[in-house]
């Protein structure tokens, strides 16, 4: 019998309050499958505050602590400190924040947690806008995307600015491990979760979380949109351990970026010239990632200078 690659255990219950086809719900479900019941999750104000259902119910089979939107990094430092003080050693601590709660208002606390070396996993589930409040642009919204605060009317043409490179910001802190994950590729997702679970120190997941109502696609297309994101190079799957880059999915030639963009209403207004510009940016980023991977495979003087944190499991 073939070995199951996705853990059978379910720690997210049906009856949750996510929209149909919610990428953020899939992200949590797959994450907890890999991490198991001895997990404490700290969640700031975001879609997941609501998805987890109101008092006195919960959609999770693990302990969940709510925190204000900007404070997730500090919250997981506090949880880990309490567990250490009380001698509980086998618990995985997770901060599970949206892109706003990570890359915008939560950036300071994230930086603090990474710099302090908190033994926890910080997850950014990235639905690329403030979705819980009704699709307002965030620093993680991609260039050109329609949101309710980057309208497509008059002189406005979607978000003028580029998406913030959160992985680069995180990597500047030299975490134990950082990876991009996509629920559309569950085997790759679970392999990274399992790997990170066995490490100590600060770890970071950038999880791609398609949002059907916010991105304007039909809710049964979440996985299709997710697969296109990676296969077009828009959301490459890779991991960084110390100075070592490893691209975990390479599917020969990239599909045309247009396939990803045209699958979503938020990009409907883009002109062929806009699409060409996005495509060029995506390919440049992909080439740079390939180069980083190549460079990091050869011994670099930097590798000796920046000491990666211990990665032994406790």
């Amino acid at each position, binding site marked *: 019998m073939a070995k199951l690659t996705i853990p059978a255990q379910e720690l997210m219950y049906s009856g949750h309050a996510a929209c149909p086809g919610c990428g953020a719900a899939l992200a949590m479900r797959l994450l907890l499958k890999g991490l198991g*019941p*001895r*997990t*404490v999750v*700290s969640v700031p104000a975001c879609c997941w*505050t*609501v998805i*987890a259902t*109101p*008092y*006195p119910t*919960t959609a*999770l*089979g*693990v*302990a*969940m*602590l*709510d*925190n*204000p939107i*900007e*404070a997730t*990094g*500090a*919250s*997981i*430092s*506090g*949880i880990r*400190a*309490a*567990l*250490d*003080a*009380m001698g*509980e050693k086998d*618990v995985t601590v997770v901060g599970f924040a949206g892109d706003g709660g990570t890359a915008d208002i939560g950036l*300071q*606390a994230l*930086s*603090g947690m990474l*710099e*302090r070396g908190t033994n926890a996993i910080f997850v950014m589930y990235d639905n690329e806008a403030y979705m819980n409040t009704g699709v307002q642009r965030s620093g993680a919204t991609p260039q050109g995307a329609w949101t309710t605060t980057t309208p497509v009317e008059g002189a406005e043409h979607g978000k003028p600015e580029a998406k913030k490179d959160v992985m680069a910001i995180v990597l500047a802190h030299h975490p134990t491990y950082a990876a991009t994950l996509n629920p559309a590729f569950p085997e790759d997702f679970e392999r990274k979760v399992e790997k990170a679970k066995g490490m100590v120190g600060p770890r970071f997941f950038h999880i791609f979380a398609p949002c059907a109502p916010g991105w304007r696609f039909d809710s049964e297309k979440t996985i299709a949109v997710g697969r296109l994101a990676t296969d077009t190079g828009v959301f490459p799957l890779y991991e960084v351990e110390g100075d070592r880059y490893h691209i975990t999915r390479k599917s020969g030639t990239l599909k045309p970026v247009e396939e990803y963009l045209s699958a979503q209403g938020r990009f409907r207004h883009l002109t062929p010239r806009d699409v060409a510009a996005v495509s060029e940016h995506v390919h440049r980023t992909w080439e740079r990632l390939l180069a980083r991977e190549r460079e990091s495979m050869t011994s670099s003087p930097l590798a000796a200078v920046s000491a990666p944190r211990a990665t032994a499991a406790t």
Partner: protein
Amino acid sequence: MTKMVLSGNSAQAHAARLARVQVISAYPITPQTSIVEKIADFVATGALKAQYIKVESEHSALQVVVSASGLGARTYTATSSHGLLLMHELVHWASGARAPIVMGVINRAVGPPWNIGADHTDTMSQRDTGWIQFYAESNQEVLDTVLMSFRLAEHPDVRLPVMVTEDAFYLSHTLEPVEVPDQDVVDGFLPPREPHAVLVPGTASRLGSFTGPDRYVDFRWEEAKAMERVPATLARVEEEYRRATGRYHGGPLETYRTDDADAVLVTMGTSTTTARAVVDEMRAVGKKVGLAKLRLFRPFPNEEVRALAATVGRLGVVDRSYTFGPMGAAATEVSAALYPSPRRPSVTGFYAGVGGRDVTPHVVRRMYDTLLSGTVPEVHWEDIEEEVAVDG
């Protein structure tokens, strides 16, 4: 018991050590810094076995202890002025989450203009956040109140966070002899925290949740009831502390020579010490004046204030902050406490010592003289040169 010469800040740090706090988190701000430095020394030398999380902001400092407290750890932090204001969101969160945190706050003026002098504006601006608030007069009182605050905060009838405040520099950086109880005495008085097991790893539990209008009010009502149980619980805690250490600081409102007084000043923090000396001096020349030290501001000791008012002619309330209300913060509370009372003396709100200006015996004497003069103003700013013009 050891007699030590300690600053108010050292007294806070020693109390945190003796309380065997498990998680501390703090961000430095003048004049709080010597607390967090002293605690760092205690942790470094092993005198205190605790997780000490040095964070990148006060907002994070309070979040760290809120989360750690949610898991059941005994927690402590300290801040001042702008640091407390940055914490404001988490100040509400801590009480709403019923986290029994104890926080030292060094009362310091709020900018602009920048000023590190003693002023109660910082904690007064947090008076309606669901924290218990003590204002201390001496470094001994600081140490004792921090220790009692852990018992009070963690008591099952209460489960609310506590601020123990000190006036900047008058206490924070001034050395006084302090009796430091032995560890076994404190251990007897303050056993390890019994975790209020809401959030338990390995279980489907949640702390902080969201709820609609159908249930939200129930949480606030529960919190209000807990706050109402503070005076009775505090009385028991103070009695136990007295039995353990021999010290007692006079309950929520400590009165001094108020019998048959024509005029009584209500003070908070260090201006009390000056006022006490002035009372003795004025009594010696036959002026019937008295003093009441407001130690506990939240919950406000309404009953004690009414009992005091029943015996005195005129009340003056000294506020070391300006809060843009009809009277000073404490004067407003005193007035509100007295309104339902059948015996209501006049109440004058004095602003004195704002921004760290000294509340001298001369200033105190003038406040008493104002009260005794017969024509009492509703509010009065002490020590202001009104003729000074400010060029635009």
